[in-house]
């Protein structure tokens, strides 16, 4: 039996790799996506254009402005002389933040009254707005603490001592790049497996395959295992790129990572075979793969946290293999976890794989005749 399956696997691999166009699809898009996602998909801000409206022309306010301009996050793109300039600059999106320092700023500082500073932010991109406010807030807090120290004021009773564990510099790339391993492995495996049966159906060779002495189980294996192989290679290449190109630390055990990837790819193959056996044409298979992929990526915690979603949708994400593999990938990369940390995830993935493969086998039998 194994010899027969091996022959089928070789045939499948040849079918995918010999055609220059489908070979290109396996190599070029994942590479482009890796680079684009790795570099563009970041929530970290830098060079945010700001304008300063300093109505208090004295040393303390100039120090405050210098702190803003000295930070990597902000660059000044306009200087405001009259209040009327503020609105057009913000409206035209020329600047994202206007720091407006009140004329009483220094006087109030010296007389121990709260010195007014206004921050006006463009809220059209509300996430960026919140992060800009966070940065501005800490610059101003630092300035305030410094001022108190320099002018003999008593220190505030308590200070925050903030540390970020696992990612001390809060680099978004460390969050996004390990996620790409899961996303791209899914995309490639799903396309290879999902289109394989549909392509044979379109070409009419599927009927030929059915009249050979292969059992249906063997055909399924022959269709599924190439996906495992290709998915495994693809995942390994991206893992290497994450570690050596993007410098994301891989702190946990490779065994835990690969066990998770194996179960994940098995689940994706099951889903791909289900799509494949339901679709009559390649276009339908492509569409089916797309209809599965979009929600599975959006509702996985890849870019936006699951914890922010409504409770019903949070429950739904348990069915999503991507959710579990993301926990495993990020856990092994950043948190340095081992196999024992992911028992629930492994179980969920194994259950999805078993169910989807069984369903695919059943659909296959139903659709074969």
């Amino acid at each position, binding site marked *: 039996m194994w010899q027969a399956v091996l022959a089928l696997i070789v045939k499948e691999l040849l079918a995918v790799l010999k055609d220059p*166009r489908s070979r290109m*699809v396996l190599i070029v*898009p994942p590479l482009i996506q890796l680079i*684009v996602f790795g*570099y563009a*998909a970041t*929530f*970290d*801000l830098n060079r*945010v254009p700001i304008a300063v409206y300093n109505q208090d022309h004295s040393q303390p306010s100039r120090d405050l402005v210098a702190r803003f301009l000295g930070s990597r996050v902000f660059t000044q793109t306009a200087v405001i002389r009259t209040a009327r300039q503020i609105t057009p600059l913000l*409206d*035209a*999106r020329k600047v*994202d933040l206007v720091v407006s320092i009140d004329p009483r700023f220094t006087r*109030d500082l010296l007389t121990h009254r*709260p*010195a*007014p*500073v*206004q*921050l*006006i932010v463009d*809220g*059209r*991109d*509300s*996430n960026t*707005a919140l*992060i800009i*406010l*966070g940065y501005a*807030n800490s610059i*101003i*807090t630092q300035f305030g603490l410094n001022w108190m120290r320099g002018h003999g004021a008593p*220190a*505030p*009773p*308590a*200070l*925050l001592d903030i*540390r*970020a*564990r*696992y990612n001390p510099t*809060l680099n*978004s790339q*460390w*969050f996004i790049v390990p996620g790409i391993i899961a996303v791209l492995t899914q995309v490639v495996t799903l396309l290879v497996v999902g289109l394989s049966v549909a392509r044979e159906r379109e070409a009419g060779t599927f009927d030929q395959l059915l009249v050979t002495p292969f059992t249906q189980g063997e055909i399924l294996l022959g269709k599924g295992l190439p996906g495992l192989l290709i998915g495994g290679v693809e995942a390994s290449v991206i893992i290497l790129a994450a570690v050596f190109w993007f410098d994301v630390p891989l702190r946990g055990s490779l065994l835990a990572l690969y066990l998770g990837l194996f179960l994940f790819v098995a689940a994706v193959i099951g889903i791909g075979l289900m799509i494949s056996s339901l679709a009559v044409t390649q*276009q*339908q298979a*492509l569409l089916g793969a*797309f209809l599965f992929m979009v*929600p599975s990526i959006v*509702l996985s915690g890849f870019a*936006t*946290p699951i914890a922010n*979603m*409504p409770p019903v949708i949070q429950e739904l994400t348990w069915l999503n293999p991507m959710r579990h593999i993301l926990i495993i990938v990020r856990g092994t990369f*950043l*948190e340095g976890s081992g196999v024992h940390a992911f028992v629930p995830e492994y179980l969920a993935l194994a259950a999805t794989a078993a169910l989807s493969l069984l369903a695919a086998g059943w659909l296959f039998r139903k659709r074969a005749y």
Partner: protein
Amino acid sequence: MNESLERLTGLLRKEALQILRDPSALAIAFVLPAMLLIIFGYGVTLDPHRVALAVVVEQPDAVTHSFVAQLRGTPYFTTESFSTIQSADRAFDADRVSAIVWFRSDFTRRLASRGAAPLGIIVNGVDANTARLIEGYLQQTWANWLAMRSRERGLPAGLPIDLEPRIRFNPAVRSRDYLVPGLIAIVMTLTGALLTALVIAREWERGTLEALMVTRATIREILLAKLVPYFLLGMGGMVATLVLAVWLFGVPFHGSLLVLTGVSALFLLAALGMGLLISSVARNQFVAGQIAIIVTFLPAFILSGFVFDIGSMPWPIRLLTHVVAARYFVATLQSLFLAGDIWSVILPNALALAVMAFVFLGAARLRARKRLD
């Protein structure tokens, strides 16, 4: 001319029937947009709320109690109390809490004697964006607590600066209000570029386009007949998304419908041009689908400013975003919905879209010749 018009109506009828009879075309035009809208509208938000905080109080007293009450009073946090840092650490490692606030046993003593008592905060940095937002919320709570404390004691304010943040256009800072308008660009990219590329590539594959070429219909008529139905589908998608955005998700719309329609039409023409161009380059559904996803759909998602800030990207990628039509459309959409008809945003972006529509449609027209190769 009359004969030409007759041919055109005939072709249009054929295209319309083809769309209506093809379940996958309707799926891309209606099911996918509806699904995207619901997933994004309900599922995607970047604003953390009710963040699970572990509060470790080694020695509870009035001071720690007032701080914890301040934390509980904000809508951002739910707190879980621990008496040792070890037990909180275990909850942190099991991902039950996203951050730890740690009052060490000498906190109140140091606060009373020398001040500047360190309050330990540990955030989970794996999700850097959320971590940063949580830090911001904690800082704000701390500043409020300081101000409240000095007010109670009649001391000068905790910090010497009175910060007044004002967020224009989206004062409630709901991330949904900026994500949902951007979705119009995604939906129109799907119908304009992906669907058009797929369907016309299929005609190349099946040879039905060649069959059209031997008729008396001119290439201009054939192209026009292809464009009109998908243009209408795309505009339909825009209207449906607008209606759902405003009625279902309560996103404000401050601009004028006329401007929205005009800019959408320009973007759709550019997207249709890209779809036509892709199909005539690929002439194969599988490859056309792949190219369409890579050069239209993914950029509309990642490189358009829909979710990620363009200004913060590295310069080669920032340069690349200038050839992404969705970039100009998303910028206009966000302004139209949240700010209104701001001409200093609309005019340059509309101009860029017009140029792109002209270039892509022109290129598609040039490539489409009545020839068989």
